[in-house]
């Protein structure tokens, strides 16, 4: 079989279960393509030798009852992997080898999957273009010098370039959905509390969620089913009844009420985004959904509130990087000097900027004016969604205000970079689930995504809507392998 790497996860699992291909063949195919694709810079750490060994072992004693039998996959380098270097895209963790495994990755290995390696991402997941990584830019397979989005940029690129059949990312303000949208792939940000945060390098703890990234909605549902579990090791993990998302997946969404929030028609939004949204509404109608105009009046305040809450939590979370117990250390004349030099040399520019913002908004005299204010605005944003969900079952919006941009295009203007997340950030502030599915292309042929936002714990519903719409949209990603010599 020549095109193992272009198969969906579902097809790959079927082929392995039917013994048409072995785990070794599969793993080798992804490794070979990975080795030819180093120009994309998706891997921070390759674990190919171990992967092949594990695949051979799987084939010797295969267990086809597992959901991911001998399936190789790469994961974002924000998930701690026992014995495999985990950097979070930062110099300060560039030599860190975790002595434990994140719950989410453990669930995946328990189902028979095999780690291919650790994927590039923005430093500590702070970025929207994968340009803040200490390990360099990631190229999008869509076009040369195009950003894959961020922060799960390595994950999105690897997936779209057929270097992994499926992957996981994390989403604090859009870090799964925005890169999925930029690369023509599917990305789900689950409800806050669905997937354990244990063993994920922390950025902003009240917003961070891990989630699946895949080539289609069915694969996404299958991976979500595996990683969504209650975990006592995460105090914000929520014990609710989870669906068998892939088994219960249906394209019957007749009568579902889908809200269209007028506030998402932002100034200066390119016409092609507006057109994509209108097309999306038509598709939803064709699927039998009922379209309802709704209002989310505080939408415009989500991004400014996010840029207080997220840096505040980050400044607190990143206080642990002091050069003492693990990670990079710089030499100092005394203890304080060592701390200050370690953090100044170990963190990149964007991370330092966010730590400083966070420290400032939490500092004496400013806490009420900024942090408390932002938490109150966060409440208003959540209330907006609560009110909307009295009338609708889900909400349909564009995933991003534009298609992918060129590397270097927005690096000098932090606010213009932050605006990328204008449609995704409100969802994190309210703790809701949302999925981005590819729905079209812009004039240059770059992918554009639509976002479906659900009620808390209603992943099944948005997966179903996405599944039904995916059938109508029939999106095909055009990947030319331009980077392979």
């Amino acid at each position, binding site marked *: 079989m020549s095109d193992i790497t272009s198969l969906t996860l579902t097809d790959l699992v079927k082929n392995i279960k039917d013994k048409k291909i072995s785990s070794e063949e599969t793993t080798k195919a992804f490794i070979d393509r990975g080795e030819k694709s180093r120009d994309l810079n998706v891997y921070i750490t390759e674990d190919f030798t171990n992967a092949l060994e594990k695949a051979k072992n799987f084939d010797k004693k295969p267990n086809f009852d597992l959901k991911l039998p001998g399936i190789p996959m790469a994961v974002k380098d924000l998930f701690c992997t026992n014995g495999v270097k985990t950097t979070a895209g930062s110099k300060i963790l560039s030599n860190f080898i975790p002595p434990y495994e994140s719950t989410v990755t453990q669930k995946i290995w328990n189902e028979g999957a095999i780690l291919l390696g650790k994927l590039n991402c923005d430093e500590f997941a702070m970025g929207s273009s994968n340009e803040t990584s200490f390990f360099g830019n990631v190229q999008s397979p869509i076009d040369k010098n195009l950003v894959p989005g961020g922060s799960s940029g390595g994950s999105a690129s690897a997936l779209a370039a057929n270097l992994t059949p499926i992957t996981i990312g994390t989403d604090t303000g859009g870090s799964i959905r925005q890169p999925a949208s930029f690369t023509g792939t599917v990305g789900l940000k689950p409800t806050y509390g669905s997937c354990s945060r244990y063993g994920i390098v922390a950025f902003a703890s009240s917003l961070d969620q891990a989630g699946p990234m895949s080539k289609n909605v069915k694969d996404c549902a299958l991976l979500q089913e595996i990683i969504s579990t209650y975990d006592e090791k995460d105090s914000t993990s929520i014990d609710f009844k989870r669906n068998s998302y892939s088994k219960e997946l249906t394209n019957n969404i007749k009568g579902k009420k889908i809200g269209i929030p007028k506030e998402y028609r932002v100034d200066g939004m390119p016409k092609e985004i507006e057109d994509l949204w209108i097309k999306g509404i038509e598709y939803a109608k064709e699927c039998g959904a009922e379209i309802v105009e709704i209002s989310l009046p505080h939408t415009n305040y989500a991004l400014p509130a996010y*840029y207080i809450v997220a840096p505040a939590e980050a400044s607190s979370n990143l206080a642990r990087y002091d050069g003492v117990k693990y990670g*990079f250390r710089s030499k100092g004349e005394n203890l304080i000097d060592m701390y200050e030099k370690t953090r100044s040399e170990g963190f990149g520019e964007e991370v330092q*900027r966010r730590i400083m913002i966070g420290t400032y908004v939490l500092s004496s005299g400013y806490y009420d004016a900024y942090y408390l*204010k932002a938490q109150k605005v966060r409440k208003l944003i959540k209330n907006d969604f609560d009110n909307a969900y009295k009338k609708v079952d889900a909400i349909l919006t564009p995933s991003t205000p534009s298609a992918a941009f060129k590397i270097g295009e927005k690096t000098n203007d932090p606010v213009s970079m932050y605006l990328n997340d204008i449609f995704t950030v409100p969802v994190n502030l309210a703790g809701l689930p949302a999925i981005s599915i590819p729905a079209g292309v812009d004039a240059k042929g770059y992918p554009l995504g639509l976002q479906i936002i659900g009620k*808390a714990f209603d992943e099944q519903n948005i997966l179903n809507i996405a599944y039904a719409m995916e059938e109508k949209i029939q999106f095909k990603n055009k990947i030319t392998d331009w980077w392979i010599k």
Partner: protein
Amino acid sequence: MTIDLKTIKHISKLSRISVDDEKAKKLAGDMNTIFDFIEKLNELDTDNVEPLTSVAETTLKLRVDEVKSGNIREQVLKNSPDKNEDFFVVPRVVE
């Protein structure tokens, strides 16, 4: 509101990130741009709004206080930039 160089130096001290003058200037510029953007929140009257501290409407579960992952001292110390047998080593703090 403007964040001046003195404030930047103060925040850098609180953040334990050393900042030279050139970096401080750049940071001041960036932070002023970002805070201009954040000031938009002041358009909203939030006097009677409860702050949202957690979206997870759940009470913390109690559990038995017991060690579940022990005896990994060597593995933990392996990541230390400087160690001396069973300890993390830092620059001298007591003369």
